[in-house]
């Protein structure tokens, strides 16, 4: 029995060491300052507790409008074709006015028919006007529609930024619209150490698209050569893009390509994307799957274009040019000389969705704790006073067993902080609320056990039997209360966002720590105590 007890104590100490490592890592020294430094590196505090960066972003809503009218251009062409009307061009004449679409070269004799077709299909969102001649028309996006599109774009950008910045959902950033009507977003992030990386992640448009390549896949050495091949006049529905010169290796890096402006597959068509590695060449790739709808379109396109080339465009540059060997439906791989970081970020972008428009940083400042340093000081003092009161009371009320309870409380906190350190979760005030609940339930567990032991002693049992029975009965109650709360915390974690999630995380960790200390550690300490009792002596409780 003695050896068994020694093993148990050793196990507990080992576990404790693991948790301490989670909290401190390997500290530089043992001075107060060094320890504090070590802790703050491992345990992340939220905005309300430590402050962080205050970023203001401008959403380039014009791009979203432009995307919308790009797709309108395609729809107009389809509509005119299906109505059997010829046309010479459908395009956007003015880059500074993305809401304007111009149609030229329709049959002048059938003007009224064209008019009714355009009205029927587009007058909901666009104002249809006849152009200067009988065979031209303009479509202008209605101001109300444009405004609502802009608002939707800002909201979408907010959601996408939140997804990108908040991986586990536990870093609790503050993201809100800023400055009425100016399409700006405020982002506050706690204690960011690598600001540039975060800014890169937020800003990255990473709009992955697949465009048809005009001509063969070899590309041109520079823009002049490309233009020369089309006699200097590039059709408006094509554009010239550079290959990605970002990577050192690869001889294709600085070529220039002519591609169709309209993509075959774009951001929202991707259902999922994951980094993977080509088993033959060891090159990093992104394995993607498309939505059903996009898959069908891709199948149609690739079936009709076997032998032709398509370009994978990311961030405005051509990343890969591939020949269409056979029809592809809905999954494939994108190969290119990606770095590991690029591949992970790309996959994340594809999964969380592309930003609806690009973002500019207007302002970038540090900001103090939103709770205010003064109130944090006051709160910490109050909390320490409270916990000390509890510990003293336990000693007085339960005598030597009170030490048991106090030790359990202390261990709980260490284990909880250890979990937090390992998981990288952020501690905010709602998280601290979770800790308070855990402390309450921890105290409760101990009280349950002790009261039960006292009942058993009153019923006449000897020390060891009383402790046994006490634990046995209390265990049922402790399991019920803890599992119920863990069920609730799990659901809050899965479905909640922001502070609700932070609360759920610390609560779950705390409850697990509680189960361990209240039942295992407490038991072991009692066993040790029982071993030291003389026969007939009672536990001090």
């Amino acid at each position, binding site marked *: 029995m003695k050896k068994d007890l020694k093993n148990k104590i050793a196990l507990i100490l080992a576990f404790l060491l693991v948790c301490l490592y989670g909290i401190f890592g390997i500290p530089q020294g043992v001075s107060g300052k060094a320890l504090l430094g070590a802790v703050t590196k491992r345990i992340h505090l939220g905005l309300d507790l430590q*402050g962080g960066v*205050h970023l203001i972003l401008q959403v380039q809503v014009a791009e979203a409008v432009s995307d919308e009218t790009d797709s309108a251009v395609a729809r107009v062409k389809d509509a005119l074709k299906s109505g059997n009307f010829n046309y010479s061009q459908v395009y956007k004449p003015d880059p500074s006015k993305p809401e304007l679409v111009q149609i030229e070269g329709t049959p002048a004799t059938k003007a009224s028919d064209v008019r009714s077709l355009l009205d029927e299909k587009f007058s909901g969102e666009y104002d249809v006007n006849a152009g200067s001649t009988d065979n031209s028309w303009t479509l202008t996006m209605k101001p109300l529609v444009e405004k609502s599109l802009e608002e939707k774009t800002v909201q979408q950008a907010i959601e996408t930024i939140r997804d990108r910045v908040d991986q586990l959902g536990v870093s609790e950033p*503050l993201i*809100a*619209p*800023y400055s*009425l009507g100016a399409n700006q977003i*405020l982002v506050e992030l706690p204690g960011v150490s690598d600001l540039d990386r975060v800014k890169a992640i937020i800003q990255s448009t990473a709009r992955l698209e697949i465009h048809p390549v005009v001509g063969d896949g070899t590309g041109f050495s520079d823009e002049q050569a490309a233009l020369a091949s089309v006699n200097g006049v590039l059709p408006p529905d094509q554009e010239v893009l550079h290959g990605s010169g970002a990577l050192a290796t690869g001889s294709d890096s600085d070529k220039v390509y002519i591609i169709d402006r309209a993509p075959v597959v774009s951001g929202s068509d991707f259902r999922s994307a994951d980094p993977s590695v080509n088993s033959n060449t060891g090159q990093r790739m992104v394995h993607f799957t498309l939505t059903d709808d996009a898959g069908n379109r891709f199948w149609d396109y690739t079936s009709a274009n076997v032998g032709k080339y398509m370009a994978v465009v990311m961030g405005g540059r051509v990343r890969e040019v591939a020949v269409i060997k056979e029809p592809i439906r809905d999954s494939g791989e994108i190969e290119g000389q990606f770095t590991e970081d690029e591949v992970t970020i790309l996959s994340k972008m594809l999964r969380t969705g592309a930003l609806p428009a690009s973002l500019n940083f207007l302002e970038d*400042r*540090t*900001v*103090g704790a*939103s709770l*205010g*340093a*003064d*109130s944090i000081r*006051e*709160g910490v003092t*109050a*909390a320490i*006073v*409270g916990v000390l*009161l*509890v510990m003293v*009371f336990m000693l007085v009320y339960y005598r030597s067993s009170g030490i048991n309870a106090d030790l359990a409380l202390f261990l709980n906190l260490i284990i909880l902080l250890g979990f937090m350190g390992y998981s990288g979760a952020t501690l905010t*005030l*709602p998280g601290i*609320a*979770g800790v*308070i*609940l855990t402390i*309450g*339930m921890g105290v*409760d567990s101990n*009280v*349950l056990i002790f*009261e039960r032991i006292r009942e058993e002693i009153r019923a006449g049992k000897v020390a060891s039997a009383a402790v046994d029975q006490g634990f*046995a*009965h209390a265990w*049922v109650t402790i399991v*019920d*209360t803890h*599992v*119920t*709360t863990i*069920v*609730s*915390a*799990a*659901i*809050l974690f*899965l*479905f*909640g*966002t*922001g*502070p*609700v999630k932070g*609360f759920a995380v610390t609560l779950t960790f705390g409850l697990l720590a509680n189960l361990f200390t209240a039942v295992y550690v407490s038991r072991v300490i009692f066993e040790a105590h029982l071993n030291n009792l003389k026969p007939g002596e009672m536990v001090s409780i």
Partner: protein
Amino acid sequence: MEFFRGVNVNWLGWKWYFLAFSMIFSVAGIIKMSWYWTHTGTPIPLSIDFRGGTEVQVQFANRPDIDAIRKAIDAAGIKDSRIQTYGEPGQNEVLISLPEAANENSLDAGRQQVVDALHAHYNNPFSDTGVGVGAVGATVGKQLEQQATKAVLLSMAGMLVYLWFRFQLIYGVAAVVACFHDTLITVGAFALTGREISLTVIAAILTLVGYSMNDTIVVFDRIRENLRLSRREPLPDLVNRSINQTLSRTVLTSGLTFLTVLSLFVFGGQVLNGFSFALVIGILIGTYSSIAVAAPMLVAWQQWRAGKGKAVALPAARRSKA
């Protein structure tokens, strides 16, 4: 030392008083909330997290003292502002956020309020023209609100299902009803005292739900154990006895936790006030509801079933061992 030996209170005998007490506070809360709703569009005062507001940037000549600034803003009658240092430490800049309905006029009004308050009550020079102002939207948009509400309701359902599985359906229902009762009275207390609800208060409310549930389950557990041991005992007597047996533990745990949050409420400062207020009320009501709401509901249900001639549904009947 022991407080409660041989206690024998007839808790269920007080059930009508309990009901009256609960009703008074619930109704008072609901009335105040309806008043708020008709006057301000939301049932309770909401903080800047929910409403958005105005951000005022001020650059001082000397190092700003956040405590003093907060007192100055308070003295001018501006409640529930958020004050943070802004920019590099040497710049002496401060960001003051006020929950205001953000429209063009109130931006300037908010700015003026802050400027006036600082001039009147805080002795640190700053240039009026250098004061910047911006409008911040709500951090908790509609979507977040809906998600959070869904999450909370689902978690209640989860707890109900677990209790159904471990005890009986009525136990789960009674426990969840007690939790709703606690939340209603706590939120009502906020409405009655005119306090704002912020995101941290929401966390405090989640805490009190967990706490109330914990307390209720302890009582139910003892009831279940006693039912297994003495099937002949009339249910009200058995329930009373169970409550009395767990009274020592209940008062201790609640008392200790209450002391801790009371310390936070008294010493924790103004910003944490809403948070600690919710916990103080919550712990009291959470303990109360296990005895005054959950237990009587359980007994009433069983008696109703017995009255209709149905057998009393006991968790003990289903289980043979602990």
